């Protein structure tokens, strides 16, 4: 009975993480389209939500489960997963509160690593996986997107430089709808799977599913729905940061940032090198601004984003570890997770009440 309650809590928490992933990370995907006027805010968000939903059904390769390469799967229990998810959700909400785009995947990895270390010790961590699959890509992703977007905007301006501004702006705005759509689809495919994988692992650990089982349809559908609803709710604070606060972008820069982002993400997907969507898009936005003029990038805002990226893994790990420790005060039963869930829901309600009114849709600034 107790394990069934923990399982239900883990599933609910995983779907809550998926929801925060939707409004947190997809904000990056649609931010440039909205800020250049390529699409109206609600249309861009609705389109991205739909493509996130569709993307979740494209592939169900649960082997892509986010934590399996960085922590020893043998030691994972539903309570460790629960504490890790709380760490990830908490960090997503903290960065959303301050309007900082950070990686939900890194938050999830950090949370699970922290809770696993708190439960078992550092032996639970696969250092090779953590460095090779998380830390190195975290450095490579923004630098690569920065360079590709910077070169791309140079090509764009050179090719269309003598054309009338009207047709150029309209053309790149149409292009942004395509590149933004591709990014949203890729995001749905990658990130909804993480939630599916975690719920499936919890079902297997509980004995509800046989080992090596594929996720049942209701898991796929609920993960797709949660990420799409999160996307549709709109992470306006992060959209403002990525779309208007890093650089004031025109349509060509928006297209270059999104096109470079889509190319980098799909190339990394093809060659099995995991990169963060958030890092890629924001690196692309900075690259398309810096290539035009270095001073066009508001480096203070970019610095805050870098700090958030550096803090994501340790902060989510600390919260995950503390959460695990707190739940164990009440033993191994369901009481600890129930209390943490109630406390988390109360904090989330307060945070939303204080900040939701400050997150109005973003106006287009691009020419």
């Amino acid at each position, binding site marked *: 009975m107790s394990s069934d309650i923990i399982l239900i809590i883990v599933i609910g928490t995983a779907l809550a993480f998926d929801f925060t992933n939707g409004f947190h990370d997809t904000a990056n995907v649609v931010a440039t389209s909205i800020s250049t006027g390529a699409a109206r805010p609600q249309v861009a968000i609705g389109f991205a939500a739909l493509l996130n939903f569709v993307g979740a059904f494209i592939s169900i390769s649960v082997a892509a489960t986010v934590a399996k390469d960085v922590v020893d799967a043998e030691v994972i229990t539903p309570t460790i997963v629960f504490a890790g998810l709380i760490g990830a959700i908490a960090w997503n909400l903290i960065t959303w509160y301050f309007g900082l785009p950070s990686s939900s995947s890194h938050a999830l990895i950090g949370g699970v690593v922290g809770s696993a270390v708190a439960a078992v010790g550092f032996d639970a961590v696969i250092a090779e996986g953590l460095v090779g699959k998380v830390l190195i890509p975290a450095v490579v992703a923004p630098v690569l997107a920065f360079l590709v977007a910077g070169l791309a905007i140079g090509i764009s301006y050179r090719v269309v430089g003598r054309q009338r501004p009207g047709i150029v702006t309209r053309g790149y705005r149409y292009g942004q709808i395509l590149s933004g759509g591709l990014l949203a689809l890729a995001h749905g495919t990658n990130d909804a799977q993480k939630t599916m994988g975690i719920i499936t692992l919890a079902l297997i650990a509980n004995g509800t599913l046989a080992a090596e089982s594929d996720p049942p349809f209701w898991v796929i559908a609920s993960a797709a729905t949660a990420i799409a609803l999160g996307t549709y709710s709109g992470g306006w604070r992060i959209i403002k940061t990525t779309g208007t606060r890093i650089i004031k972008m025109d349509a060509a820069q928006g297209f270059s940032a999104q096109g470079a982002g889509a190319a980098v993400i799909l190339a990394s*997907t093809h060659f099995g090198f995991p990169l963060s969507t958030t890092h890629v898009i924001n690196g692309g936005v900075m690259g398309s601004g810096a290539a035009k003029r270095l001073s066009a990038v508001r480096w203070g805002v970019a610095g805050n984003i870098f700090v958030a990226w550096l803090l994501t893994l340790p902060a989510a790990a600390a919260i995950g570890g503390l959460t695990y420790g707190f739940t164990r005060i009440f033993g191994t039963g369901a009481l600890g997770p129930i209390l943490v869930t109630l406390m988390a829901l109360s904090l989330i309600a307060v945070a939303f009440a204080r900040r939701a009114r400050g997150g109005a849709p973003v106006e287009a600034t691009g020419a």
Partner: protein
Amino acid sequence: MIATIVHTDELLQTIAASVVAGLGVTFLFSLAIWGAGQFVELSRGERPVAATAALVVGGFALAGVAAAIVIGILVMTSK
């Protein structure tokens, strides 16, 4: 040791493919816009042959972009 952890081959392939795809798609899409812009300009200047040629160039470029999008979706579905 570092090479084992980082998977240098995957990293270099990712960088190369990202640069080629990112710059290639941007160039093709920009060429499509150039073609459309030139078509309008040349049509106004009553140069139908040159206008048609610009439109054809733009059309091929747009077809290249469409092909890249299809490849992108195939990459996602074949994961």
